[in-house]
């Protein structure tokens, strides 16, 4: 438990002025132990108190010490079983054996793999997060006269006193674009990467038809947002206690728990209902990977009442 206590617990932070999101602790990448990049499911934490979890971990440590012959290739661990350590694989994310089942596998001939999938829970969740929003940018490569664009294009707003860009919308794909006088453009609202690119091209064509020498340079997807439902309620309080380093939960500020996963670098909003929002991805795979990482953990914090 020393390792857990060596990290100062997060205090509730006041949100910055005018911010919509709750204040976030500044997460330092300098983890004192291991490389807790990918969260690991602790155990079946149906326990009601931290004390029981501590006891369970002590039992685990004793059993691990007994099996010390195995070269524990888990990185950053030396005979101990910290709650969180790095794992590369997706399938074998349940790396800490359940206390109940350890006795079954406690033979000297236990395989050397650091991943001991004691439960079939390490299989895929069967739930695929749906993409809800893609934000992308592109450079049209020429200076633009925003007033001309606002006067001649359809479905455009331009209020330079409030914001220095033309806000244009198209219906298919249903998206919104911010077009700046420098020629740079932000395209938001698409549901897939291809749709985002297509929409950006449509906006570029509108600008081109107005007489500007628009090009399509450096199209890049900047952010992807996905959401899904694990279909069971979640004990957020338990989750924030065991995954303090990654979680921020202040129900008075925001009803969702903010989980900042390090690998992949994704922020998840986890709600009591079981709905999960994932954001911060540059590619679709990061969303899927993050969800596959979090799903076994969430299962461990399923509400049973």
């Amino acid at each position, binding site marked *: 438990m020393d390792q857990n206590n060596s990290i100062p617990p997060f205090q509730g932070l006041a949100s910055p002025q005018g911010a919509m999101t709750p204040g976030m602790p500044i997460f330092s990448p300098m983890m004192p132990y291991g490389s807790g990049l990918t969260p690991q499911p602790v155990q079946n934490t149906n326990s009601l108190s931290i004390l029981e979890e501590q006891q369970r971990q002590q039992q685990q440590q004793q059993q691990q010490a007994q099996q010390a012959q195995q070269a524990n290739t888990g990185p950053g661990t030396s005979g101990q079983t910290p709650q969180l350590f790095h794992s590369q694989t997706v399938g074998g994310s349940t790396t800490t054996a359940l206390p109940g089942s350890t006795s079954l596998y406690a033979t000297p001939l236990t395989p050397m793999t650091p991943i001991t999938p004691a439960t079939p829970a390490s299989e895929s969740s069967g739930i695929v997060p749906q993409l809800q929003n893609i934000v992308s940018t592109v450079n049209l490569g020429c200076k633009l006269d925003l007033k001309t664009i606002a006067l001649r294009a359809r479905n455009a*707003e331009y*209020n330079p006193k409030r914001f220095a860009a033309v806000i244009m919308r198209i219906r298919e794909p249903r998206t919104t674009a911010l077009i700046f006088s420098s020629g740079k453009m932000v395209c938001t609202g698409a549901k897939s990467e291809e749709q985002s690119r297509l929409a950006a091209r449509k906006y570029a064509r509108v600008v081109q038809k107005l007489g500007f020498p628009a090009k399509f340079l450096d199209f890049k997807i900047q952010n992807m947002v996905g959401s899904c439902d694990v279909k069971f309620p979640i004990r957020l309080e338990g989750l924030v206690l065991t995954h303090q380093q990654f979680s921020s939960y202040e129900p008075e500020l925001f009803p969702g728990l903010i989980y900042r996963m390090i690998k992949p670098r994704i922020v998840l909003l986890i709600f009591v209902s079981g709905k999960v929002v994932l954001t911060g991805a540059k590619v679709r795979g990061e969303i899927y990977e993050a969800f596959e990482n979090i799903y076994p953990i969430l299962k461990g914090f399923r509400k049973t009442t």
Partner: protein
Amino acid sequence: MAYQLYRNTTLGNSLQESLDELIQTQQITPQLALQVLLQFDKAINTALANRVRNRVNFKGSLNTYRFCDNVWTFVLNDVEFREVTDLVKVDKVKIVACDGKRQNPGALT
């Protein structure tokens, strides 16, 4: 200086046509016609602001919108104008709207 928004209305256009006729027949100068139109702008703005009490609701689907120079321009399709008394349906209507609350009178044309 009031909005010149209402010059392109039935009333405003009739006035402009009449003034053009008078100019053609040399009965008034173009400068005078301009003054008449400016007076018309003031009069119509104050009349609509102070002497109009009835209310009309309308509902339709939005075809296009535009916001530039603090002027909204909408084109709606299949619009129903509803007053307590009656109902008018049109296929297409163009709405040009200026800001109601005067913030910077100097900026008006």
